[in-house]
């Protein structure tokens, strides 16, 4: 796994931020913002680091969740309708994090992260989520499944642990924001 492939994540993240800042100016603004975001990634911070390499050093390579969020955001910024199942996808990512991260930091009886190396727990969980996604026609989850296959199949993440292919910390933070925004939108329906 070369750092060249891993560096895709920080550049995509910067493009996403750029697009979100300029999306108020329509599709052209979003595209311009994404381009500016990409350009920011090349800014040198010192003799050896660019902004993108520093972000990679701190945040690590992207997971399938991150790529999915980028696609969902790109569709939204370019004027397409919200993708069905986005809130459910965000909820699953946040739920995974709630189950995984406290244990990873030593605050639970079981080592949940170890279940990403071997065992039936995580595959069984994913079978259930696939069934739920088919039942609810959750396109956002379908995109996530596709990226999961790509991340694992093409080793886009250096970790052999399945959890790392599925979620990462920046994605969880964004997914939490998506989930909260979705809940707020449901609780405060627009009236004509």
């Amino acid at each position, binding site marked *: 796994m070369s750092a060249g492939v891993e560096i895709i994540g920080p550049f995509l993240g910067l493009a996403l931020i750029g697009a979100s800042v300029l999306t108020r100016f329509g599709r052209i603004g979003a595209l311009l913002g994404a381009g500016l975001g990409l350009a920011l990634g090349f800014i040198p911070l010192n003799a*050896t680091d660019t902004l993108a390499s520093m972000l990679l050093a701190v945040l690590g390579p992207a997971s399938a969740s991150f790529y999915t969020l980028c696609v969902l955001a790109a569709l939204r910024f370019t004027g397409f309708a919200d993708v069905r199942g986005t809130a459910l996808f965000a909820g699953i990512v946040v739920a995974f994090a709630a189950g995984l991260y406290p244990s990873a930091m030593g605050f639970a009886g079981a080592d949940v992260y170890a279940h990403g190396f071997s065992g039936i727990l995580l*595959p069984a969980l994913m079978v259930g989520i696939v069934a739920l996604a088919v039942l609810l026609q959750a396109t956002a989850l379908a995109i996530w499944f596709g990226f999961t296959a790509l991340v694992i199949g093409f080793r886009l993440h250096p970790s052999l642990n399945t959890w790392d292919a599925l979620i990462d910390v920046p994605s969880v933070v964004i997914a939490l924001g998506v989930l909260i925004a979705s809940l707020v939108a449901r609780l405060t329906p627009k009236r004509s």
Partner: protein
Amino acid sequence: MAAAGLVARLTTPLQRLSGVRRFTLATGVLALVAILANQPLVDRWPATFGPPEAASVVSSPGRFEERIVDGPRGGHTHAPAAVSLGGGRLFVVWWSGRVEAGPGVSLYASTFENGAWSPRRLIIDPRRVAADLGRSIKTIGNPSLVRHGDGRIEMIFVTVSLGGWSGAALNRTVSTDEGQSWSRITRLWTSPVLNLSTLAKSPPIPLGDGTLMLPTYHELVALRSEMTRIDAQGRVIDRRRLSNTVAALQPDVTILSPGAGAGPSSAVAFHRPTARTPNVLVNRTDDAGRTWTPLAATSLVTPDSAVASVELGPDDLLIAYNPGSGLRNALVLARSRDGGQTWRDIHRVVDDQTPDPRLVAYPWMFRSGDGLIHLFYAADSYATIRHVMFDQAWIEARP
């Protein structure tokens, strides 16, 4: 015809699915296939340890020698890790820099041959790591070394990109020329939380299938000892957290000889405790590290300091530790003849009782194929790396 009928029967329900559902099912099946290819459904931790180093113990009348490997120097010199190169030669690596965890801290090495340590040489600095990994590196920390049967030296070492030790990650490199040059450095992925806060301090243990069991520890928020399994390509393929409730770190594993209650896959791990619970902790495995007993306290009290251990014989263990609960002003060898139940101090390697004592810490101890026991440690308030070697006869002569 029958096959065509079967295919039709199987695909008819799929054809009834909407386009979105078919797409979701297709990507879902792809993801499941990838996941099942990625992780085995059954635990594949090997049942045995790797073959022990061929020993040709030379009986001697009692030998104890002490040497300075490097120093004293200004700044901070710490955390030696060493292996035997065979034929009485040794190789040691440590980190040194202006301040602990400061910019520019690098790994240095020295080789012992013909009865003397070579001048130190720089082997890896943060620039080299940053170039190999393609990511920012601020500082370098503890190395851990193992020499394989084919002569390769595998080194796993700590780096930090941002913050202090809780922001650490592990890296791996290999030397095929006895430490003169090192392969491209790769990152070990050990934690889902930004890959933060996994460190190592003690020797890796070869397992029966050629993989390594690296004693590691996690120190982001909670202190937890772990065993991380690494394959021949340097990828993390499994791990065992030794306790999710007891604070412990820097585990040091000693494989036990069969007999006297120990099986062919038995080992003990001694753990650095915290200042609040100052007794050295211990637990045991009888299946080569797959499962471990709960952590228990030994009678050894140490001031939040690392320990190192070797086996002298069945149920006969030797440990190097900092005694007491105050400063790290002494380093003691203690022996247990009952498998670690009770301990007796047999030699004070360092004992500085002056009002402003020079501190000593981070023992690394192993037994080479010629039967000599080698103890390395940071001394003189972390300005010097020292090496002590002694044999079984010297130990037996201790009162």
